[in-house]
């Protein structure tokens, strides 16, 4: 039975790599996006094989959602019309190839050359909890401070980027009700 698990593990790894390669091989934005989604799903299941069930399932959840939205933006910004016109997914081939090969060689050399330590002790009963404490434990305060700062940055960025202000919506005296919006909302503000 453990052989079945081994085969499934390596099969998923190969599927993740091949689906990742397909992103550059296919000739449609939609196919490229969902090839990437398949790659991420395979990685998510692999993470579940490492008993990090929460991390694995969250990876699948977030990545599928992200790719569903990303496909929309890819099609919108990349000038691909809905007529499924084929288009190449690569550019700057020589530079990209050189960087990719160097990165691969560097990482692979690292894997092979590092003197990996032997296992000491045994895995924690709840490895997800152990991973979280290892990553976040002493830095929890920093994380707790950074999160509201990040949210504030996102909100401020959107506010600065929006070309319409409250004066456009509510008039010069801010008294116009309901607001004049090009896209009326659902709650009648």
């Amino acid at each position, binding site marked *: 039975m453990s052989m079945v698990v081994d085969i499934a593990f390596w099969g998923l790894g190969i599927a993740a790599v091949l689906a990742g390669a397909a992103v550059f091989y296919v000739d449609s934005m939609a196919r490229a996006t969902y090839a990437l989604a398949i790659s991420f799903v395979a990685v998510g299941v692999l993470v579940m094989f490492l008993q990090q069930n929460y991390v694995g399932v969250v990876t699948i959840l977030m990545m599928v959602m992200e790719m569903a939205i990303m496909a929309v933006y890819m099609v919108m910004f990349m000038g691909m019309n809905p007529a499924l016109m084929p288009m190449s997914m690569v550019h700057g081939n020589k530079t990209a190839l050189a960087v990719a090969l160097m990165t691969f060689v560097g990482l692979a050399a690292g894997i092979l050359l590092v003197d990996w330590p032997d296992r000491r002790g045994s895995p924690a009963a709840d490895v997800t909890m152990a991973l979280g404490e290892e990553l976040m434990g002493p830095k929890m305060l920093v994380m707790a401070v950074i999160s509201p700062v990040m949210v504030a940055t996102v909100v401020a960025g959107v506010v600065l980027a929006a070309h319409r202000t409250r004066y456009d919506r509510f008039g010069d005296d801010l008294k116009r009700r309901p607001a004049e919006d090009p896209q009326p909302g*659902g709650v009648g503000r």
Partner: protein
Amino acid sequence: MSDLMLAAGAITPEVTVVPGGWAILALLILGSLTLFAAALDGALSARAAGVANGLGRPFGETARLLRQRRRTTVQADHLLWRIGGAGLLVTAALMVTVVPLGEWMIFDLDVGVMWFNAMDVLVWAVVWLTGWGANSAHSLVGGYRFLAHGLGYELPLMFALVAPAIAAGSLNVGQVAEAQDELWFAVWMPVAFLVYLLGVVAFSVSGPFAPAIGTDIAGGVRAELSGVDRLVFEAGRYALLAAGAAFAVPMFLGGGAGPLLPGWAWVLLKTVLLLAVLVWARRRVPALRPDKFMEVGWLVVLPAVLVQDLVVAVIAAGRG
């Protein structure tokens, strides 16, 4: 390497993990529930239209669609189109793997609630792909409409699933069901329950969330679907509704708890009743325009369910 998938010992002592072969029975049950939902919908449609008994409509439609010739469009992306069309049914099947049938379970995952959530997000991809693949403007408009709805309903749905998990102190579906031996979660977290049901209706592309397949855009996502493709897509929508109803039973309706009857019978009974209510209710609610529902979702539904989560968290912390 782990033997997670083969974990023989269940997480909750009361739950028995059955061998994989029983998945066929689970599929048969899901199929029966799907048929039930379709037949009830047919009967309600027939009554509304004032025509004779519509209970047999799913059979008639199946026979008609199986005989129908498959239509295609110019330069359709057949691979993505077929993945999308069949995906709804597959997603529904993956959802019910974590639902305990009384004491039996196929996949006793410690993060079963997240699993269900991940599967309902798959619906985004699947519906958009169905709209995209046909290479038809109306289909694609339907696909975009569904994603716009998704942005409105998905976060409230996620936070609605958080409430029972907080109260039970676990993401395992069996343990969430166990935690309701005193009072069903549907009773003391009604907002989360209602928002969850809204989410179920939404991810089955039906009722108020049907503009993605609206007649104003010639059928939207399913405009170009014909024959067996259309059959599988429609069955998938009913199956998602059924899977959502089945998952509500351990999450909000006490799982297999109930007098006289065994646990599995109660699970099935509650599922059938909730499914019937959903099929009936979704016909009663008018369509929600995607652009307008976005604001309703973010400014009304999401804060409401967040307050619900806060209340549940405070009560759970108080009980200690």
